[in-house]
C-alpha cells in the first residue's frame, strides 16, 4: 500500500507478574499500520489481543504489568517510551479507543453530555458552549435520536446500542488519526452489531482514520478490514490481506478457526468443527509452537522450536513449520 506509515509495532512483549507466577500475555509481536488502513486482530479469548493494544496505549497497570521489550513507533515517536503527560495528549486526541461493553464503559454518575464535552474542552481547547454544540453534532452524526434533549441523560437511560454510539461519538470527538476498537460489537446482539459496524464503516470514510479492530468474530472482519492478524497465545501466527486470509489461509490455527465458523451455505444439521483442547496456560514460558498441542498437523519440530513469521506469498506471513497445502514440512 502506498499510504504513509502510521504505526509500527516491533517485538512487543508484555508480561504480568502475579502471585501465581509470570503471565506471558504478549510474546514479541510486530506489525505495521498505514494511515487510513483497517487492521483486524482476531483470536480467541485470552490470546493477548486486548493486552497488546492496551500496552501501546500505555494503559497496562504497572505493576503487575511490565512491557518487557519492544517499541511502538507512532509518527516517529515511540509510544512506549513517552512520558505520561505527553501520552495523555495522544490518548483520546490522536489515538482513541472504543471498548467492548458499552454497559460498563460509560461512567454511571456523569451525564453523557459531560463525558463528551470534557474531552473536547481538554484536547481541543474549546469553550464550554462550543463544546456542547459540537457534542450535539457528534451525537447526531452517530445516529442518536434527539441529541440536544439527551445531553443531560445518564448512561442507564440508554440502550446498549445507543450507548455504543455514544462511546463512538466520544472516541471520534477530537478527530483521531487512529481508532482502536476493542471488541466493540461483542456485547451487542446481532442486529445492533450490524448497525454499529455499518456506522463505523461510514464514519471511517468520513474521518479517514486508521483502525485497529479487535474481535473474535471472523464474520465481522471480512466486511471491514484491509489486513488481518491472527493471534494465538500472545504470538502472531498469520498475517495477511483480508481476501487472501479467507481464500487462502495458511496456518493450521486459522484453518481451524474458519472451520469453526457457521456458514449459511453449509448443509443443515452439520455440526460445527470445534478446535480440540484448550488454549495454552500462559503461566508457562512459551516453548515450541504454542499451537502444537492442539494442531492436527503437528510434527516433532513443532514441539521444540517455535517458528517465526515467514512470508509464504506477497504480503502474507505465517508462523508454521509445515505447508498446509501439501502437508509437508517447509
Amino acid at each position, binding site marked *: 500500500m502506498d499510504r504513509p506509515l502510521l504505526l509500527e509495532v516491533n517485538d512487543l512483549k508484555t508480561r504480568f507478574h502475579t502471585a501465581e507466577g509470570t503471565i506471558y500475555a504478549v510474546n514479541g509481536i510486530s506489525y505495521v499500520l498505514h494511515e487510513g488502513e483497517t487492521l483486524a486482530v482476531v483470536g480467541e479469548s485470552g490470546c493477548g489481543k486486548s493486552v497488546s493494544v492496551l500496552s501501546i496505549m500505555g494503559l497496562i497497570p504497572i505493576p503487575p504489568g511490565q512491557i518487557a521489550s519492544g517499541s511502538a513507533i507512532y509518527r516517529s515517536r515511540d509510544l512506549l517510551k513517552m512520558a505520561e503527560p505527553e501520552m495523555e495528549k495522544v490518548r483520546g486526541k490522536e489515538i482513541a479507543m472504543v*471498548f467492548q461493553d458499552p454497559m460498563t*464503559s460509560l461512567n454511571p454518575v456523569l451525564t453523557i453530555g459531560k463525558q463528551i464535552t470534557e474531552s473536547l474542552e481538554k484536547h481541543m481547547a474549546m469553550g464550554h458552549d462550543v463544546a456542547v454544540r459540537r457534542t450535539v453534532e457528534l451525537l447526531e452524526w452517530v445516529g442518536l435520536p434527539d441529541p440536544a434533549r439527551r445531553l443531560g441523560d445518564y448512561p442507564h437511560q440508554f440502550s446498549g446500542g445507543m450507548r455504543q454510539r455514544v462511546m463512538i461519538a466520544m472516541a471520534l470527538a477530537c478527530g483521531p488519526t487512529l481508532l482502536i476498537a476493542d471488541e466493540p460489537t461483542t456485547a451487542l446482539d446481532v442486529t445492533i452489531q450490524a448497525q454499529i459496524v455499518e456506522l463505523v464503516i461510514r464514519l471511517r470514510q468520513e474521518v479517514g482514520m486508521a483502525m485497529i479492530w479487535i474481535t473474535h468474530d471472523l464474520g465481522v472482519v471480512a466486511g471491514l478490514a484491509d489486513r488481518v492478524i491472527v493471534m494465538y497465545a500472545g504470538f502472531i501466527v498469520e498475517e495477511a490481506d483480508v481476501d487472501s486470509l479467507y481464500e487462502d489461509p495458511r496456518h493450521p490455527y486459522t484453518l481451524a478457526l474458519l472451520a469453526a465458523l457457521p456458514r449459511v451455505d453449509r448443509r443443515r444439521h452439520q455440526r460445527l468443527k470445534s478446535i480440540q483442547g484448550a488454549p495454552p496456560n500462559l503461566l508457562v514460558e512459551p516453548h515450541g509452537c504454542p499451537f502444537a498441542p492442539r494442531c492436527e498437523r503437528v510434527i516433532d519440530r513443532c514441539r521444540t522450536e517455535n517458528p517465526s513469521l515467514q512470508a509464504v506469498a506477497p504480503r502474507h506471513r505465517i508462523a508454521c513449520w509445515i505447508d498446509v497445502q501439501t502437508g509437508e514440512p517447509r
Partner: protein
Amino acid sequence: MSSEAATAIPQLKADELEAPPLTLRQLTWRRFRRHKMAMFGVAMLVLLFIYSFGGAFFVSEADANLTETAARLQPPSAAHPFGTDTVGRDILARTIYGGQISLIIGLTAMLVEVILGILIGAAAGYFGGWIDAVLMRFTEAVFVIPQIFLLIVMAKYFGGKVPNIELFGRTFSGSVVVVIVIIGATSWMYLARIVRAEFISLKEREFILAAKATGTPAVEVIFSHILPNCMAPIIVSATLAVAAAILAESYISFLGLGVQAPTATWGNMLDSAINYIDEGAWWYWGFPSLLILLAVLSINFLGDGLRDALDPHSRAV
C-alpha cells in the same frame, strides 16, 4: 361474575401511562421522605438551627455573657426562661450562642474529617502499592489510639496556643479552631478506609479505563470520575460525623480542655454545671444536655435515613 372481574381491572389514565420513569434523585428523595425517623431528624435539626442562629436576633451576645451576681442560680422564670447559672448568666441566651458554636464545630470538624479521609483514602486506594501500605499502616496506627485519649492530649497540648479570632464583629476563642482541627484529625480513619475500599473496586471498572483512554490525567480520574461514584457512603458517614463531632466537642469541653470561656458551647456549659447536679439546679445542666441529645439524635436519624435512601439495593420505594 365475568363483568365483575372486568371492572376489577384498574383503568390507567393516559397521563399515568405516559408518566416518565423516576430519576435516581427522585427515587432517593421518595425513599428518604418515607423514612419517618429521618424526617423527624430533619425537622428537629431545622428547629435547632433556627433556635441557635435565629435566636441571635433576639438576644445579643453581650446578654449571653452578662453576669448578674444578684441573680445566681435562679430557677426558670419569666425573666430567665431557662434559669441562670452560678454567676447569674442567662442560660437561654447561653444555649443560643453555645448552640452556634457547637453546631459550627460539628459541621467544620466534619469537613476537616471528610477532606482528610477522602485525600488519604483516595491516594491509598487509587495508587496502591507502597503508598497504600504506608497510608494504611498510618491509619491503623491512629486507629489503635483511643480517640478520647488522643483528643485530650492534643487539646491539652495545643490549647491556648491559638490567639482569639475576630469574625463578623465578634470575638471567638482560639480554642474553637483547635477543637475543630483536633476532632477532624482524630476521626478521619473510618472514612479513609471506606473511601479506599470504594476506590480499589471502582478503579478496576471499565469506565475508568475508558476515561484514561481519552487522556484524562490521574487527578481528574480520581476527583471527577471515581469520587462521584462513592458519594453515597461518604455523605452518610459525613452526616454521622457531625453528630460524633458535637459529642466529642461536648466531651472535651466538659473536661475543661475544649472551648474556653467566655465563648459558650453546649459542652462547656455542662463543665460548670457538674457540681450542681446534687443541688437541685436541674435547669443548669438539663437544658444544654437536652439540646446535645436532640442534636445528636436527630443527626443520627438523618444519617440512617440517608443510608437507606442512597442504598441502590434498597427495595423500599
